[in-house]
């Protein structure tokens, strides 16, 4: 558990859940700079694959 949390903390700064209906949720995730960088990097690799 601690190891998993460490990974999430590296990637995620803040999560705000929202209940969309009974017992169903969505989550607004604020990423850390590293999380954002990974998202951008993955997006970059996808763009490169398409090009």
């Amino acid at each position, binding site marked *: 558990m601690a190891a998993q949390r*460490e990974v999430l903390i590296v990637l995620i700064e803040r999560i705000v859940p929202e209940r969309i209906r009974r*017992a169903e949720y969505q989550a607004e995730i604020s990423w850390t700079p590293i999380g954002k*960088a990974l998202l951008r990097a*993955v997006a970059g690799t996808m763009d490169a694959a398409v090009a």
Partner: protein
Amino acid sequence: MTLPGSVPSSGLRCTSGVPRQASRRYLLTGLLYCPRCGERMHGNARMGRPGPTRSRLPMWRSSLSGALSTDSTCAWLAHGPRLETVVLAQVLPLVETVTSTEVGLRAALHRAWQAIQEPAGAATSAKAIARLEQEAGRARQRLTRAAVLYADAEIDRHGYELLRDQAHTDLVAAEVELERLSGIAPVPKLPDLEAVLRQAGRLVDRFARR
């Protein structure tokens, strides 16, 4: 469905003030904020409906009351495992992608990681800043030199004003450009990608074993 890292039977509840993560028993502790009151959430056990199937449900709870406050309440509750499922559904695809061992993808990821830290024009901007700082320095020296020449009567007032105005114009131009360049977003400092990937891989490995 039981997800790895799901809230165990004791659950979580929302707290205000300084985050408490001492127990480290819950996957999202310290990360969840209540959508209603904005306070941090924490795990808490909650008794299910009375009856033969009554059980302790793991819940994420927002509560401004309880031990922290007596005059306000926020009873926003969320089902622990379901909420964690939603969060992990967003995080795991990213983690699985970045920890892919596919050579081409890994190489592309490294290139993209490098590119983030060296955005186009960053090197050019650094050179421009160095050049402009030199120009500003030279303009200041010329201003000083003009004043000295005038004081020593080596140039007349008209000559002094010409030198001064030209040097001042150059100095202002350099400073304006320096100010513009300094407003450009700084290049992010990121850790070594392999270190990040190793850590991310621990999350994937843990889930894969279950």
